[in-house]
């Protein structure tokens, strides 16, 4: 558990950016080794996940994943499992070498999150549209128990085409769950193509607002902006939605903005190129997160 001591802001930002680059490298290495998986939505979420897990946002204890007072994070867009696993390994929930067992028979790292198998995974997701409801349940329990933990759910923007997301949004607002934050990874690309061509869920911010949520928009690749928004005090009695503007495949140039890399693993030369690019960024300290 990270102590609640004041931390120099620039140190924190630098540290989180560094972690985001490491997470991206893990994602490509894991998916490349597995030969299948979802790099695009993992890379678009990398800075969000890095800020949550390394920016003193989530209160979790790797040595005690079931700690009753922990903050709860639900990866509702379960196909981005690789970036969550990378963060959990980097936080010490399990050894880093486990990452390369992704999607293999007998691995604790399933293709989509399995709360029974993986320490630190809160909910078994992968069937889109359910994570926000699950988070609502945990937020209701927190209120009943008068606990101060917070519940977070990360949704895909394509996922917001699922009707259940709006059932959950309605319930969160009805029950005044101000201990709940929904983050939408707004990369504007889904499996079959751009959202506005496949099925537009827009305007997302207005929809959440209409459902009674406190809505904030943020650059989903800006570590300082994400950190500020995640740490900002909420409105009493209202759940918060953070619409994070992102780029699908962010950090690997040839993947950026392309639906083709939603659910396809890079192989051979492409894998080498992606890892070379991410290695250079780790060494130079450049890349997303600015």
């Amino acid at each position: 558990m990270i102590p609640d001591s004041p931390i120099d802001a620039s140190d924190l930002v630098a540290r989180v950016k560094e972690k985001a680059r490491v997470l991206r490298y893990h994602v490509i290495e894991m998916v490349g080794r597995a030969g299948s998986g979802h790099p695009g939505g993992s890379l678009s979420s990398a800075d969000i996940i890095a800020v949550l897990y390394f920016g003193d946002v989530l209160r979790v204890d790797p040595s005690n994943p079931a700690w009753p007072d922990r903050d709860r994070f639900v990866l509702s867009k379960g196909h981005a499992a690789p970036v969550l696993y990378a963060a959990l390994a980097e936080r010490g929930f399990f050894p880093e070498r486990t990452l390369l067992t992704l999607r293999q028979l007998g691995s604790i790292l399933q293709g989509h999150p399995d709360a029974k198998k993986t320490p630190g995974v809160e909910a078994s997701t992968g069937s889109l549209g359910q994570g926000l409801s699950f988070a609502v349940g945990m937020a209701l329990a927190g209120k009943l128990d008068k606990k101060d933990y917070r519940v977070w759910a990360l949704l895909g923007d394509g996922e917001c085409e699922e009707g259940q997301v709006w059932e959950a949004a309605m319930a969160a607002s009805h029950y005044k769950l101000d201990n709940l934050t929904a983050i939408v990874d707004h990369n504007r690309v889904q499996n079959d193509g751009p959202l506005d061509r496949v099925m537009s869920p827009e305007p997302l911010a207005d929809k959440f607002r209409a459902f009674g949520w406190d809505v904030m928009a943020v650059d989903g690749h800006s570590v300082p902006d994400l950190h500020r928004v995640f740490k900002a005090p909420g409105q009493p009695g209202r759940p918060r939605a953070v619409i994070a503007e992102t780029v699908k495949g962010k950090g690997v140039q040839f993947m950026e903005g392309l639906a083709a890399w939603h659910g396809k693993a890079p192989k051979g030369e492409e894998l080498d190129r992606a890892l070379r690019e991410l290695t250079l960024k780790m060494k130079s300290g450049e890349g997303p997160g600015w």
Partner: protein
Amino acid sequence: MVAPREAYGEMLVELGKENPDIVVLDGDLSVSTKTDKFAKAFPERFFNMGIAEANIMTVAAGLARSGKVPFASTFAVFATGRAYDQIRQSIAYTGLNVKIVATHAGLTVGPDGASHQALEDVALMRVLPGMVVVVPADVQETRAAIRAAVRYQGPVYIRLGREAVPDVLRDGDGFEIGKSRVLWPAVTREAVVAAPKADPPRFDVSFIACGVMVKACLDAAVVLEAQGMKCVVADFASVKPLDEELLLAMARSSKAMVTAEEHSIVGGLGGAVCEVVAGEHPVPVYRVGVRDRFGESGPAEALLEAYGLTAKDVAAAAREVLKRTDR
């Protein structure tokens, strides 16, 4: 006569006093499912989720993940059909401690018609790994099943009807998940299990039933015994886990079997019995149930008659299945 759902509502209040972790979710049907009794007693622990069954099931999963013991209730057709994926992915896959108590199951919903008559819910729940499926026969057994569900750690599906039903069990409190009870003749489950194999078998026909069909089987047995047929009737409220020990003992000690349920003959108790009996000790099995079709509007009693779910139908099934033993 009392409807089991009334007993469900009362049990929720009783158990709610004992266990502060019990919470209840409903989907705008609390007056019908009787969870309104709990809502009145413990308003802060009752969540009306509105007409949004998918959300109900996944929110229940989240509550369970945070240590609550959620009861999620709506009509059986919506609980299992509308929210099947939520039950599979969010509840069963992680083995979360959610109790789904669905009411208005089966044909006896009556006039509401086929849209509201769940005839496949037991099949849907039974195929989920780790899901306990209970179909109580009367009010006593309902009370015992609700209590057992709270003691059990993991997902449970309990199926209740709309109508008031007569008492059929001598000892409602004797219900155990995974153990069934012999109701006729007056012998214990253990005696049937321990009985040595006899030739010819001790009984002509074994009756395996759940829900409202337990009474139908008992009534049929009285008629058949008077005509010289030796019968044994068991209440298999615990459809999953199935009491295979008793089931196989009954298969060994009878010439043929009849299953009876207010459910499709596909995938329910009859299907479960055939899966076990066919593999372990094949005897002819006649499945009394709805014969792979949808229901329709009508009074409950008239529907049971029209769809072949009366004591008369059970008795006819017994006579029919005995003929197959001669082949």
